[in-house]
C-alpha cells in the first residue's frame, strides 16, 4: 500500500462527499445523506487492505466504504441522484448503494443488521472454496444492537473469516457513546472470544496496518477479529441538520474533532507536487462524475417493481384498475 494510494483514497472520499452535499443543497440528491467527512481514514485504511474479491457490508454512512472498495464514483453519484445509470439503477440511493461485482454487499440502513449478513456471506464463500474475507463496518451505536452481538457469537464459534470494524466517532446521532455503551466496546467482542484492538482512526496508515493484520489472520484461517477505530464525524449526522440545527454538540467539541484531519495527515506524507497532481486528477474525475450523474436519465416508473422478486414474480398492482 503506497502513501499515495492511501492519500488518493481519503481525498477522493472527502471531495466526493463535498460534491454530494452540494447536490443535496441543489435538490439533485433527494432525501439527503449521512456525510462520511472526517472518517475517511477508516474506509480507506481498511479497504486498501482488501482484495477486489473480498467483500464488505456498509452502513447508512456508507459512501466512504463504497468508494474505497472500488465502486465507480460516477455510478455512485448517479445512484445518489436516483438515475437509471446508478449502481442500483436508482432503486437504492445513499443508504443501500451496492456493487456485488466488486464485493460491496450493500450499504444497510438498519444499524447493526449487516453483521450477521457479512458473517454468513464470509462463511459461505469459504464453504464454496473461495478464499475471501468479509469486513462488516458499523458505528459505535451498533454495538448496542443484540443482532450484532449474536453475529459475534456465530463468527467466533465457527471461526468465520470476517473482520468487524467499529467506527467509534463518539456519537450515535445525538447520543454520546459514553451514555450509550456500558463497559467498553472492545470488551464486547472479547467476551465472545474475538481478539479486539483499538487504533487511531484518523491516521490512514495506522488503520491500514491494523486492518491488514486482521484480514491476513482471517484469510489464514485464524477466524474473526474486531477493530475499533477512534474517529471523528466532522459534519452533521445527516444533512437535515444543516437546516434543523440540533443542540447537542458544542463548537469547542466540534473544533477538537476537526483538529486531526485524515486528509491532511496523509497529505503531509506526500511531496506537495504529487499531492497536487492527485488533487487535480480527483477534481477532474468528480467533475466528470457529476456530469455523468446529472445527464443520466431517471428510471422508468413503470418498472418500479421489476426487481421485487428475483424469480420474476409480478406483484398485483395497487390500483384495482
Amino acid at each position, binding site marked *: 500500500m503506497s502513501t499515495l494510494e492511501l492519500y488518493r483514497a481519503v481525498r477522493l472520499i472527502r471531495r466526493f462527499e463535498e460534491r454530494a452535499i452540494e447536490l443535496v443543497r441543489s435538490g439533485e*440528491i*433527494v*432525501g*439527503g445523506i449521512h456525510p462520511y467527512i472526517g472518517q475517511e481514514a477508516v474506509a480507506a485504511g481498511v479497504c486498501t487492505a482488501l482484495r477486489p474479491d473480498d467483500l464488505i457490508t456498509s452502513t447508512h454512512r456508507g459512501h466512504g466504504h463504497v468508494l474505497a472498495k472500488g465502486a465507480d464514483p460516477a455510478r455512485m453519484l448517479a*445512484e445518489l441522484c*436516483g*438515475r437509471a445509470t446508478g449502481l*442500483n439503477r*436508482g*432503486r*437504492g*440511493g*445513499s*443508504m*443501500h448503494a451496492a456493487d456485488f461485482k466488486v464485493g460491496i454487499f450493500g450499504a*444497510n*440502513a*438498519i*444499524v*447493526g443488521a449487516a453483521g450477521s449478513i457479512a458473517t454468513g456471506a464470509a462463511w459461505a464463500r469459504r464453504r464454496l472454496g473461495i478464499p475471501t474475507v468479509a469486513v462488516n463496518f458499523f458505528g459505535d*451505536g*451498533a454495538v*448496542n*444492537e*443484540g*443482532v450484532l452481538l449474536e453475529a459475534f457469537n456465530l463468527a467466533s464459534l465457527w471461526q468465520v473469516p470476517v473482520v468487524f470494524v467499529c467506527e467509534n466517532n463518539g456519537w*450515535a*446521532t*445525538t*447520543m454520546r457513546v459514553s*451514555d*450509550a*455503551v456500558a463497559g467498553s466496546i472492545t470488551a464486547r467482542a472479547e467476551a465472545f472470544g474475538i481478539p479486539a484492538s483499538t487504533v487511531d482512526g484518523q491516521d490512514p496508515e495506522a488503520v491500514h496496518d491494523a486492518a491488514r493484520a486482521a484480514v491476513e489472520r482471517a484469510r489464514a484461517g485464524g477466524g474473526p477479529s474486531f477493530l475499533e477505530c477512534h474517529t471523528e464525524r466532522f459534519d452533521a449526522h445527516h444533512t437535515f441538520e444543516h437546516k*434543523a440545527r*440540533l*443542540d*447537542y454538540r458544542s463548537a469547542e467539541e466540534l473544533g477538537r474533532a476537526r483538529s486531526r484531519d485524515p486528509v491532511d495527515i496523509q497529505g503531509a506524507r506526500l511531496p506537495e507536487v504529487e499531492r497536487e497532481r492527485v488533487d487535480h486528477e480527483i477534481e477532474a474525475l468528480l467533475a466528470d462524475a457529476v456530469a455523468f450523474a446529472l445527464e443520466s436519465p*431517471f*428510471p422508468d*416508473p*413503470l*418498472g*418500479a*417493481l421489476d426487481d*421485487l*422478486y428475483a424469480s420474476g414474480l409480478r*406483484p*398485483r*398492482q*395497487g*390500483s*384495482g*384498475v
Partner: protein
Amino acid sequence: MPRLSYLKALNRALADELAADERVFVMGEDVRVAASNLTAGLVKRFGPDRVIDTPLSEQGFTGFATGAALAGMRPVIEFQIPALLFLSFEQIVNHAHKFSLMTGGQCRVPVTYVVTGAGSRTGWAGQHSDNPYSLFAHVGIKTVVPATPADAYGLLVSAVRDDDPVVVFAPAGALAVRDDVDFATLAAVPLGSGRVHREGTDITVVAVGHLVHDALAVAEELADEVSVEVFDPRSVYPFDWDGLAASVRKTGRLVVVDDSNRFSGVGAEILATAAEQLPLAAPPARVTRPDGAVLPFSLELDRAVQPTREQLAAAINLTLKKD
C-alpha cells in the same frame, strides 16, 4: 384561531399527559434533543428522568417498557423509523400484547409506541418507507393512524391513557399538516371512533392517515359529478364498524384508499367486512400499494408505488359505473 401543526399536536399531547400523570414517561432514540421534534421542549420541562434517551437497542428498550408498565408506569416509546417496529415485533406482539390474557387478567401493559413519520419519507428508500399498520391490526394491537392535528392530539392522549398497548402511526405525509384549532377544543378521541370529514350520498371513500387529505381533494375535484362521503376510521384497530355501516347504508358504494401493501391490508379487511355485512349496490374497490411493495429510492418510482389521487378518482368513477 391559532394554527396547530400535526407534529406540534403530538408534542402537546405528550406534554399534557406528562403533566397530568406522574407515571407517564417518554423513551427512545434522540428524544432529549428531539431529533424528530416529537419531544421538543419536553426534557427542559419535565427533566431527563421522564424523557429518556436510549441506546440503539429496540428490542431491549421495548421489553424494558413492558416491564415498567407491568410495574405500574405508562411508558411512551418513540420509534424514529417504522422498521424499528420490525425489530421489536416479538416483544410487542408476543409479550406486551399477550400478558393480559396469559396471566388471566393479573396485569396490564399500558405502553404507547409512536412512529414519527410512517410511510414514504421521500428519498429515504426501501428500509425507511414502510407503513406497517395493517400488521399490528392483524395481530390485534390497538392501532391508530391520525390524519389531522386535532385527531393526532386526541388519539395520542387516548393511547397514553389506554390500559393496553397502542401503536400510533404518524404518517410522514401528514406531519406538516396545519389546521386552525381552538386549543380549548382539543380533547381525547376515543379509540374505535371514525369521523366523516365530508358528507356525501353517492359513494363512501374510506381513507387512512395522510390519504384522508387526498380523498378530500379528490372529492372536491369530482364534486360536480358525484357526491363523495369521506370516512376516516382514525383508529384502524379497533375499527368503527358502525360508522362505516352508517355511511355505506346511505351510499351503497365503497372505495378504500390505504397506503398498505394490498394483500391482507386494512383495505382488505374493510372490503371483506362490507361484503359480508353491508348492502353494496356495486362491487367495492381498493387503492393501495401493490402486493409485497418495497419503495424504490428514485422519486418517481417511490411515488409510483403509493396510492395516487388519479387512481382514487378512477376507482370512484369505475365503482359508480358498475352495478
